[in-house]
């Protein structure tokens, strides 16, 4: 079973995952994160509590990335184990994300327009 905890670091919504990310847990995680992404321009996923990621898990990440692109939002990833990171690197998935070792590093690396970020979200008319 996968647990999600969410907190805000400035304008960035940080979601910490705890548990394995595989085909069993991925659909629920996908659901929750994509809902969150609708409202949050900056989403950071903390992998420190994820011991293993299967290909379905990685695809969850990529789907989020595609969604974020459509919304013009950004997704960062932090805390991946060297093994998970290597898998992401070898398959090219890593190219899609802002990745760093700590939450602070990713927040710094994300291209944040602070004023824009602190403004109230505008409801899109389309």
């Amino acid at each position, binding site marked *: 079973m996968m647990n999600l905890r969410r907190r805000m670091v400035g304008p960035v919504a940080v979601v910490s995952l705890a548990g394995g990310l*595989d*085909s*069993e847990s991925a659909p629920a995680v996908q659901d929750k994160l994509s809902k969150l992404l609708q409202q949050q321009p900056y989403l950071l996923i903390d992998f420190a509590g994820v011991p293993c990621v*299967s*290909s*379905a898990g*990685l*695809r969850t990440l*990529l789907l989020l990335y*595609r969604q974020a692109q459509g919304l013009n939002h950004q997704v960062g990833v932090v805390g991946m184990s060297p093994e998970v990171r*290597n*898998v992401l*690197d*070898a*398959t*090219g*998935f890593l190219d*899609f994300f802002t990745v760093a070792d700590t939450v602070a590093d990713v927040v710094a690396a994300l291209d944040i327009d602070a004023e824009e970020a602190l403004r109230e979200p505008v409801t899109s008319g389309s």
Partner: protein
Amino acid sequence: VSPSHLVRDRIDSFPTHTVAGYGVRAGRPLPFGATLVPGGVNFSVFSGRASAVSVVLFKQGEKQPLAEIAIPEEFRIGRVWAVTVFGLDYEDLEYGYRVTGPEYPEINDRFDATKVLSDPYAQIMSLRPVWGQPSDPDDAYPHRSRLAFDDFDWEDDAPLRIPSNELVVYETHVRGFTRHPSSGVTNPGTYAGLVEKIPYLQELGINCIELLPIFEFDEFGDSRLNQDTGELLLNYWGYNTVSFFAPKAGYAATGRFGMQGDELKHLVKKLHKAGIEIILDVVFNHTAEGNEMGPSISFRGLDNSTYYMMTPDGYYYNFSGTGNTFNSNNPVVRDFIVSCLRFWASQYHIDGFRFDLAAIMDRDEHGVPLDNPPLLEALAHDPVLRDCKLIAEAWDAGGLYQVGSFPNYRRWSEWNGKYRDTVRRFLKGDEGVLGDFATRMVGSPDLYKHRGARASINFLTCHDGFTLADTVAYNDKHNEANGEDNRDGANDNNSWNSGWEGPTDDPEVNRLRARQIRNGLLLLLTSRGIPMILSGDEVGKTQHGNNNAYCHDTELAWFDWTQTETNADLLRFTSNVVRFRAAHPVLHGAHHPNSIDATDCGHPEISWHGVRAWEPDWSPGSRLLGMMWCGHHIENGSPDYVYVVANTHWEGHDVQLPPLEEGWHWRRFADTSLDSPADACEPGAETPVTNPENYQVGPRSVAVMVGYRDA
């Protein structure tokens, strides 16, 4: 687009029956294989004579099946057994087929209901996820198929469609290229490792890599111990396919996670971004199931007499030299091969295919060569494959040699074995080969008259045989490490050891070898046709005289990256010569050159010369030939003059340079008798020559001149 317009559920996405506790319904016969469909997985498999077929499901890593779903007879359409099974976890799933034969078997039936067979269309296999790791000897079902979720994000990747005459092919081995400890990559011996070396390939200047087989094979398939050394000999090359739609998992850093498909696709994407095409060496002439004594993996137990050429008395024809022969002109098998190549071209963005022992593919089911082999015709005209390069190794182990006569539909190229043999003989100084050598240099018009120069894949070396450095260091093969008393491997190497067999301290011999290697590369890259370089030749790779290194997953066969430093001069030379070829369209024209002055520049496209200009010496004892190319630069329309003079005589000659038109003079691009860096300039920075009329060509040397407009 509002999501409500998307089809979310289908009314056929619910089961109609229950078998072995699983909801199922009649499946779709096409596509073959296992396909993810809404709510489930559709399984479809052909067997012409089975009486019963069941899908055997495993949870990944478990020894015993999770379930066995007998496909109800009424689900069969024609001879295709198809079932959709609901509620499966596709990631953890392994599967296979149990196939029962008819009550009264025929002589060529090989049904065995004790076996779980792999799916011929499996997109990944869990046979050996990590290279060289022995499998569990207690696993009764080692050849399990798996599902792949083929939704790779290609972004804007598209085929490069480099005109084939502009290619410079680099033949390499995924594992061998980066497995050596000196490679310095994060994941040695893998697709991901190769990605890290793309800058090296760009630096070298090649624009196409050809990979030795990457379809799933079993490196332990014929593994054995060398009786003398105790060394474990594996099937390192992989010309023994287990599964034709599945990439080799052991070549992926992510094979343990079943992500080999993504990793290979990532490699293709990165290569394309770097302007490099990718050709796969594919082996459709036989399978890993061997002869009568071989294992039942898939085809044998599904429909032996369809997939294999069988003798009237029930034995396997062996035109491949490996036990069996794939029956490729049978309509079912032909369809399988065409589908497979379409899959690789569309799902993996592969740019071309080199067919191992391709002459087998024009034999009928009894092994008789056909005039118009349906498979080869189908591949030549296939709509999906239309932009793919098709390259035949135009011979087989059954004695069919079709270099120049392979059924080609003006579409196929060939590995030009005659190019290799003739140029090697010329290089070592054989008498009486000058005329033939000249024919090879201009794209072998004798063989490919109606097909143009790009039908000819020119090569001096390939994985099979000596490396280039060994071609000039050994007269004879030295295959003792293969454990067959030096009986294996070719004997007609057309090699010359330059005066001493094997390594030597003699500086004269070593200088000659260095020169001979450069002579070979320079001639290869100034020939019409498509040049192919064997990986490692650009840094003087040796296999210590072994000309058949198929079984060595060791430093004997791996690319040693320290040689990029120890032989940096040769690497630089090769890179400059590759770039020189690209810079001179006259060298890589698609057609055979005209010997009349069609461009009206005062010279024919090709003209022949000797010690005196316009006086080639074609006599049997002659070892010197001047080749003057004259074309036009496509961009600026100015003349493109290149003069190649090859001297394989042991003495130097004072050679008259063919006079150029008024206002032009010769400069030197390369001269293999000179020390680095004078042996080859940076293209575009050629060196003025002191005497504009004559040039001193050294013993066993090749020099290349370029026409420059006077300042």
